[in-house]
C-alpha cells in the first residue's frame, strides 16, 4: 500500500527517482463518512476551488475560484461574515455613512500591515482604488466601483468640459433645470474645506468622451451638448479626480455619485482589496510572481504551480494573525467533478467548492449528513414573461401561470434547489424578510387579502383556474384532467437556451400547466447567444428561462433588475412608481425604512407578476466534518481566518443541515470581537440572538 501525499515531485525528477515509493499507509473508509476521513496532521487545509486563477492580482479576475483564493491573500476595508456574507470590519475598524448614503468615512486599524511589514494606510487604499479603475489596467470588474464619484468617467476615459471663462460645466447645465438638492451636493459652508473636498462634494460635472470619434458621435446626437462643448477646453478625468480620499493616514473617505447603501456589502469583493504600491511599481506585470508578491491578507503566497496548486501560509505580519488557526491552505484548481469527488473520497482533499456534486449523485451523497452542504444561495431561477403581448399582457393570466406549478414537487425533482415565490431568494435576508412580511401584511390587507393567502402562492391550482376564467379563458373539468379551450396556445411558448437541464425543467413546467390548467404550451430552445438576444429584444412570446445571481448580499442586487424604463428584466415591464420606491430606498439612511421601501417595491413587482419565480439555488458541495468555520454561505466565499481543522472527532460537525443553528463558540467569539467597534453591526448580531440564529 503506497499512498503518497507529501513529497511533491518535480516532473524531471519523476523520471529518475524510483525509491520514494513507500510513505504513509492507505486508510480504509471510516464508518458513516464519505470515504477516508482523518483530519490532516499538518494543519494545512486542502481545498478545491475550481479553475486555475487568471491572476493573483485582486483587481483583475472575475471568477469565483479566484475570489475564494484572493480572500486568503488580501484584506479589504470590510470582510464577509463567514456565515451570512454580510460585511464585518476588515482593515476598517469602524465607519460612518453620511450625505444621504453618498459619503462613507472609514477609520482604519493602526496595526494593519502588508506581508513585508509595511503599514497599511489610507493612502494605500486610495492607490488601490485608483489603480483598479485605471483604464490601462482594463479591469472587467471595474463596473462594481462605478458608484464612486467620477469612477465611471475616469475608467471610461472621459473629459471634463471647461468653458472660456474657466468654469467647469456641470451636468445641470445640460439638463436645463437647476439641480434641486441632489444627494450630498448642497454647497458646503465650511471655508476650511480643502479644494478637493469642495470639488468632490460639489455638483456633478459634465463629461464627454475623450476619444474624438465617440465624442463626435455623442455630440451629434445631442445638439445642446454640442453647443455647450463647442470651443470649450477638454480636461481629461484623472485618477486624482476619483471620489476617494485619504483624510489622514488612518481615515479613508469614499464619495459616491449616487446613493448606494449596499456599498459596505460590496467592499469585501476582491476588486476593492488593498494592494502594495511599491511592489507593483517596481515589478510591473510580474508583481504577482511568488518571488515578488506582497499581500495584505491573513495568508501569504508560498508557492504557485499553475494548474496544480496554489499554496498559501499563515502571515505573521497580519494584523489579526493571532486568530488565524490554519498554518496554510493548498488550493487545487480542478474542474472535473468525478476527479474531485474521487480525491475527496480518498481523503486527498478536505473541502470542495459549490455546485460540484452532479445531480445524479445527490441521492447517494446526501446520505452523508455530516458532510453534504446544501443550503440556499443568493441565486434564483425564474421565467420572464413578455408582458407586451397578449394574452400575457393580462396580469390575471400571468398570475394564473405563476400559481399553477407545484414548487415543492419541483424542488424534490431538482434536488439542489428550494421553492421561491418572491423575487429575492428565500432565507438569505432574514431582516429584510421580517420587514417584508409586515409590509406585505399591510399591503395585502388593503386589497382584502392576507399573508397566509400570499404564502399559499407556492401552488394554488384552484385559484389559478379562477383567475384564468376571469381573464376570459374558462377552465373546465375534462375527465380526470382540465381543459382550457379558449386559451390561445399558439401565442404563448416556453423559450429556453439549449441545455439538458433547462429542457427537463421546461418539460416539468409544461406538464404542470397541462395538468393544472389544461393548457399545453410549446417548448422552444435556442443556443445561448441567440437566446439572450431574443429575450432582451422581447422577441419571444410568452415565457423565457432566466437566472440571476446577486452581486452583493442585499435584496437590491435583485430588485434593481426592474429599475428604469430600459431595465435588464427582459420582460418589457416598467413602472415609474417602482423606480421612485427604489430611488427612495437608496437615499434612505435608516436600514429598516430602506427595507420597507424595498419590500413595497418587491410587492409591486410581484403584484404585476412580470416574472414567474420558481426556485432558489442551493450550495451543493462536500466538506469533511473536521473542517470547521467553513459555512455554506450564500456565495460560497469563505473568510479563511475563520476556518480551522478540528483534530478531536468528538467536536466534528454533525448533521450540517442544521449548521446555522449550532453555535461554534470560537467563530462567534471572534465575530463579536470584530464587530464590537461598529454599533450597527452589533445591533445586527443582537437581531440574530433574538431570532435564536447561529445557536445563540
Amino acid at each position, binding site marked *: 500500500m503506497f499512498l503518497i501525499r507529501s513529497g511533491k515531485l518535480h516532473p524531471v525528477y519523476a523520471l529518475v527517482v524510483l525509491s520514494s515509493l513507500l510513505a504513509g499507509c492507505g486508510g480504509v473508509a471510516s464508518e458513516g463518512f464519505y470515504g477516508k476521513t482523518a483530519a490532516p496532521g499538518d494543519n494545512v487545509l486542502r481545498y478545491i476551488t475550481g479553475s486555475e486563477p487568471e491572476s493573483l492580482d485582486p483587481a483583475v479576475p472575475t471568477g469565483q475560484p479566484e475570489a475564494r483564493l484572493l480572500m486568503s491573500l488580501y484584506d479589504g476595508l470590510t470582510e464577509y461574515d463567514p456565515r451570512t456574507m454580510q460585511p464585518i470590519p476588515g482593515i476598517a475598524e469602524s465607519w460612518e455613512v453620511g450625505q444621504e448614503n453618498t459619503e462613507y468615512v472609514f477609520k482604519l486599524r493602526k496595526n494593519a500591515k502588508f506581508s513585508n511589514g509595511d503599514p497599511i494606510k489610507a493612502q494605500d487604499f486610495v492607490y488601490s482604488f485608483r489603480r483598479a479603475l485605471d483604464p490601462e489596467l482594463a479591469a472587467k470588474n471595474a463596473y462594481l466601483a462605478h458608484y464612486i464619484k467620477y469612477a465611471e468617467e475616469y475608467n471610461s476615459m472621459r473629459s471634463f468640459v471647461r468653458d472660456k471663462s474657466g468654469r467647469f460645466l456641470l451636468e445641470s447645465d445640460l439638463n436645463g433645470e437647476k439641480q434641486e438638492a441632489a444627494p450630498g451636493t448642497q454647497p458646503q459652508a465650511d471655508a476650511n474645506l480643502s479644494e478637493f473636498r469642495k470639488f468632490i462634494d460639489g455638483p456633478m460635472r459634465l463629461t464627454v468622451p475623450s476619444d474624438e470619434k465617440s465624442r463626435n458621435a455623442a455630440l451629434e446626437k445631442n445638439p445642446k451638448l454640442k453647443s455647450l462643448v463647442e470651443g470649450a477646453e477638454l480636461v481629461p478625468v484623472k485618477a486624482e479626480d476619483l471620489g476617494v480620499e485619504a483624510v489622514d493616514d488612518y481615515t479613508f473617505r469614499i464619495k459616491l455619485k449616487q446613493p448606494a447603501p449596499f456599498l459596505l456589502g460590496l467592499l469585501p469583493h476582491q476588486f476593492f482589496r488593498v494592494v502594495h504600491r511599491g511592489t507593483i511599481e517596481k515589478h510591473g506585470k510580474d508583481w504577482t510572481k511568488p518571488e515578488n508578491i506582497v499581500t495584505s491578507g491573513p495568508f501569504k503566497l508560498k508557492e504557485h504551480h499553475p494548474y496544480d496548486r496554489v499554496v498559501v501560509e499563515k502571515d505573521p505580519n497580519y494584523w489579526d494573525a493571532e486568530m488565524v488557526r490554519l498554518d496554510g491552505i493548498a488550493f487545487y484548481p480542478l474542474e472535473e*467533478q*468525478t476527479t474531485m469527488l474521487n480525491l475527496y473520497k480518498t481523503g486527498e482533499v478536505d473541502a470542495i467548492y459549490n455546485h460540484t456534486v*452532479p*445531480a*445524479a*449523485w445527490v*441521492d*447517494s451523497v446526501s446520505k452523508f449528513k455530516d458532510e453534504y452542504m446544501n443550503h440556499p444561495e443568493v441565486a434564483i431561477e425564474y421565467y420572464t414573461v413578455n408582458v407586451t403581448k397578449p394574452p400575457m399582457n393580462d396580469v390575471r393570466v400571468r398570475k394564473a401561470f405563476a400559481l399553477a406549478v*407545484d414548487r415543492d*414537487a*419541483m424542488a*424534490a*425533482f431538482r434536488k439542489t434547489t428550494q421553492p421561491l415565490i418572491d423575487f429575492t431568494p428565500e432565507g438569505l435576508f432574514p431582516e429584510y424578510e421580517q420587514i417584508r412580511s409586515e409590509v406585505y401584511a399591510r399591503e395585502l390587507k388593503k386589497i382584502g387579502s392576507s399573508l397566509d393567502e400570499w404564502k399559499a402562492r407556492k401552488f394554488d391550482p384552484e385559484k389559478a383556474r379562477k383567475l384564468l376564467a376571469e381573464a376570459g379563458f374558462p377552465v373546465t373539468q375534462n375527465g380526470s384532467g382540465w381543459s382550457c379551450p379558449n386559451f390561445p396556445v399558439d401565442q404563448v411558448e416556453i423559450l429556453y437556451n*439549449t*441545455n*439538458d437541464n433547462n*429542457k*427537463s*425543467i421546461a*418539460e*416539468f413546467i*409544461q*406538464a404542470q400547466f*397541462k*395538468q393544472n390548467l389544461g393548457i399545453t404550451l410549446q417548448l422552444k*430552445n*435556442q*443556443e*445561448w*447567444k*441567440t437566446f439572450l438576444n431574443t429575450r432582451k429584444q422581447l422577441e419571444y412570446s410568452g415565457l423565457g428561462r432566466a437566472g440571476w445571481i446577486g452581486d452583493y448580499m442585499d435584496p437590491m442586487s435583485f430588485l434593481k433588475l426592474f429599475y428604469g424604463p430600459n431595465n435588464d428584466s427582459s420582460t418589457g415591464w416598467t413602472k415609474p412608481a417602482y423606480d421612485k420606491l427604489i430611488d427612495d430606498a437608496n437615499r434612505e439612511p435608516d436600514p429598516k425604512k430602506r427595507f420597507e421601501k424595498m419590500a413595497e417595491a418587491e410587492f409591486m413587482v410581484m403584484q404585476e407578476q412580470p416574472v414567474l419565480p420558481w426556485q432558489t439555488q442551493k450550495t451543493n458541495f462536500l466538506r469533511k466534518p473536521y473542517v470547521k468555520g467553513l459555512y455554506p454561505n450564500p456565495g460560497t466565499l469563505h473568510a479563511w481566518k475563520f476556518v480551522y481543522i478540528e483534530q478531536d472527532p468528538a467536536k466534528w460537525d454533525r448533521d450540517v443541515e442544521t449548521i446555522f443553528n449550532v453555535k461554534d463558540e470560537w467563530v462567534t467569539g471572534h465575530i463579536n470581537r470584530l464587530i464590537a467597534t461598529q454599533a450597527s453591526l452589533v445591533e445586527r448580531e443582537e437581531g440574530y440572538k433574538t431570532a435564536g440564529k447561529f445557536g445563540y
Partner: protein
Amino acid sequence: MVDLSGAEPKLRLDESGVLDRSSGELVAGASLWKDAWKRLLKNKLAVFGMIVLGVMVVAVIIGPPIIRLTTGFTPDYIPSDIDGGARVQSFPPSVQHPMGTDDKGRDLLARVLQGGRISLMVGIISTIVSLLVGVSWGAIAGYIGGRVDNLMMRIVDIIYAIPYILIVIVLLSVFGGPNTPDFINALSSFFGGAGNQGLSQIFLLFLALGLVSWLTMARVVRGQILSLKNQEFVLAAKATGVSTPAIIFRHLVPNALGPVIVYATLTVPSVMLTEAFLSFLGLGVQAPYASWGSLAADGIKNIQIFPWQLIFPGVTMALTLFSLNFLGDGLRDALDPQTRKF
C-alpha cells in the same frame, strides 16, 4: 482514440492479381473478388465481425421506431411530466427499460440505438469524405505524375506533419456549439428542421473527421495508381482517346479498390474512437443527440453509482469496434494474397 491508422503497415497488392486483367472494368476482376470473398468467409473472426455489424446496423435502423411503438420511449424523451418529475432519475435495467435509464430518465436502449446511428454515421460518412478526397487526390497525383504529383504529394506531406488533431480541436471548439457557421446550420435545417443545434454539430464532426483521415488514403491510392498506370489496359484506353478523368475514375480507380476498401474498413473504427475522444472533451455530439462516445463519456462519470450507464453503451461500442477491426483484418488477409502463404 485518435487517428492511428496512418501507420498501418504498407498495403501490398499482389501485382499478378492485377496483371491478369486486360481491361479496367470492375467486372473483369470478378474472379479476384470472388476469391477474396471465399477467403473472407473462411475467416471465422471476420465472419463474426460481419454478422455483428449486420445485426448492429439493422438494430440501429429499426430499433428506435420499434421502441417508440411498443413502449413509447424516444431517445430524447425526459419523463418530467410523470409523477411530478420523480421519474427523472437513473433507473436500473428492468423489463420496461432493458438497459435502464440515464440521469434524466431517458430510456438507455433507445439512446444506445440512436447513438449507434450517429456513431456509425460519423464513422461511415467521415470515411466517405476521406474516400472522396483521398482517392481523387491520390489518383490524380499518381496518374498525372511529374510536377503535379510532386506538388500534390508535398501538400500531403506538409499537412501530414501538422498535428492535425490540434486543428480539429480548434475547429470544433471554435465552431462547435453556439458558433456553428451558417452553411452547416443551413444543412442541418434542411435535414432536421430549423435551429437544430445538435445536428449542426454532427455535420461539423463529419467534416472535421473526414478532413483528418484522407491523407493516408491519398498515399495508398497514389501508390496503387503508380503501379497500374503503365499497364496495357490503360495504354489501350489512352490510345482509343478516352479522356483523362475517365481513365482515372473508370479504369484506374476500380482496379485499386482492394487496398482502398481495406483501409476504409480500418478508418471507420479509428474515426469512431476519435469522435468518442472529442465527446469526452465536450466537443463531440451535443445534447439531445448522443453517440456511443458521448454516452460512454457520460456513463463513466456515474459508473460508481449507475454502472449500467457505462456498461451498455460501452460494450456496444467495443463490440462494434472489435467487429470492424476483425473485418478489416479479414479483408486485408483476403485481398492480399501474399498473406495466404502463412
